[in-house]
């Protein structure tokens, strides 16, 4: 709790009211908000200041005694409950926790790292037909059609979506780790 006080002492120029209003906005909308989204409703604030306020807010939420985190996701920021309390929160919301099948994860992995990828690309890697899984992921909005490949048959190409980034708490595709090299595979 004292970290941000060291990092951003009152004199450092971060307006406490700006931090408060940013918290209010992220809390009330519940959504991923990009700096532009925040700036759109806070026109008198420089985007640079908004980023500073987000940093302060994020540092504060990182404290042990907070139940809410500020996560950088899908090109923006979202407040989420801390994963330490996942079970209790799911129970209070009476929701079944999201379950991802291995097939879904594998298909997503191929598309995420290869994108754009065709169904054939996915089938080739996995050695089994992935049609039903691809369809399901489209329905769930985790992948989208991104054009056709210029090869015979002109098959559809797929890419991951913002919802994919949100689901896996990724700020952008660049934050996907690089695939393991062949040498790293040996256990």
């Amino acid at each position, binding site marked *: 709790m004292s970290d941000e006080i060291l990092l951003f002492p009152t004199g450092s120029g971060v307006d406490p009211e700006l931090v408060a209003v940013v918290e209010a906005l992220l*809390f*009330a*909308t*519940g*959504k991923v908000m990009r700096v532009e989204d925040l700036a759109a409703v806070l026109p008198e604030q420089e985007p640079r200041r908004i980023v500073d306020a987000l940093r302060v807010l994020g540092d504060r939420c990182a404290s042990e005694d907070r139940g809410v*985190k500020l*996560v950088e996701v899908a090109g923006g920021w*979202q*407040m*989420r*409950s*801390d*994963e330490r309390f*996942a079970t209790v*929160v*799911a129970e209070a*919301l009476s*929701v079944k*926790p*999201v*379950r*991802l099948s*291995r*097939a879904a*994860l*594998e298909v*997503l*992995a*191929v598309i*995420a*790292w290869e994108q754009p990828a065709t169904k054939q690309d996915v089938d080739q*890697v*996995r*050695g*089994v037909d992935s049609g039903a899984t691809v*369809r399901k992921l*489209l*329905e769930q*909005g985790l992948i*989208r*059609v991104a054009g056709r490949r210029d090869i015979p048959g002109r098959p559809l190409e797929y890419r991951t979506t913002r919802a994919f980034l*949100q*689901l*896996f*708490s*990724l700020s952008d595709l660049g934050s996907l*780790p690089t*695939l*393991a090299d*062949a*040498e790293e*595979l*040996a*256990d």
Partner: protein
Amino acid sequence: MPSLFAAEEEDATPAWTVHTDVFEGPLDLLLYLVKRDGIDVTALRVAEIADAYLEFVDRMRGLNLSIAGDYLVMAATLVHLKSLEILPRLPTPVEEDEPDPREAFAQRLRDYQRYKEAAEGLGNRPILGRDQFARVVPDDAAEDAPIESPFDVFGLLDVYRELLAGASTPEPQVTFEERPHLDMGEAVIELLRVLESTGGRAELTAVLGSIRLKAARVITFIGVLEMLKLGWVSVQQDVHLGPIAIEARIRADQADLRALQGFVETA
């Protein structure tokens, strides 16, 4: 590793079935065997893994378990690759750039392993709705709001498909002017007229079916193929063996019959 075999609860005799969802296909089974037998996947020799795989598949068969086709195809592939290893090398020199099928196979397995690990990595990330939860915001609709679709584009395609399935394509109310010696030029003009009367578009078999004389039907069909080539009509068949829609691209009075293959100008 979850148990591969599980008792199926049936009244008298509990039958044993393979839970195919344990493995994501033959490559996944191979990786399991690689790990089980402590094989180094970076220096994989096909023979080592082929034996383990074939033994596994054999055992499943011995237990009278049905095995998915994919697994049998893989077994055949492995037998083939293994035979390359056992047979003495042919005296004929092997082409330099021809990849060794065994190495290609090992590479494929390694590729799958890389993605499998990547998939596990994804699954271990903090997941929204499993590990972290966003706030449930009570919604009250507002005017002038962005539009949202309940479906993705394939869902929309389903809507279209359902419509097509439910829609009764009305029989075109057409009568072909039939003459005993209809030539292709006449057939083409007549067909374009028919299409004009149905809004430029009709179902091909319904149109052809409305022609009584077989000869006229045949000449009209050839005319359709000719017109397709010339771009005078377009046809579309969305489903294999499904209805074929024919659409006119030009009007009957725009058709220059001299462009038709085999057209003979009659005086």
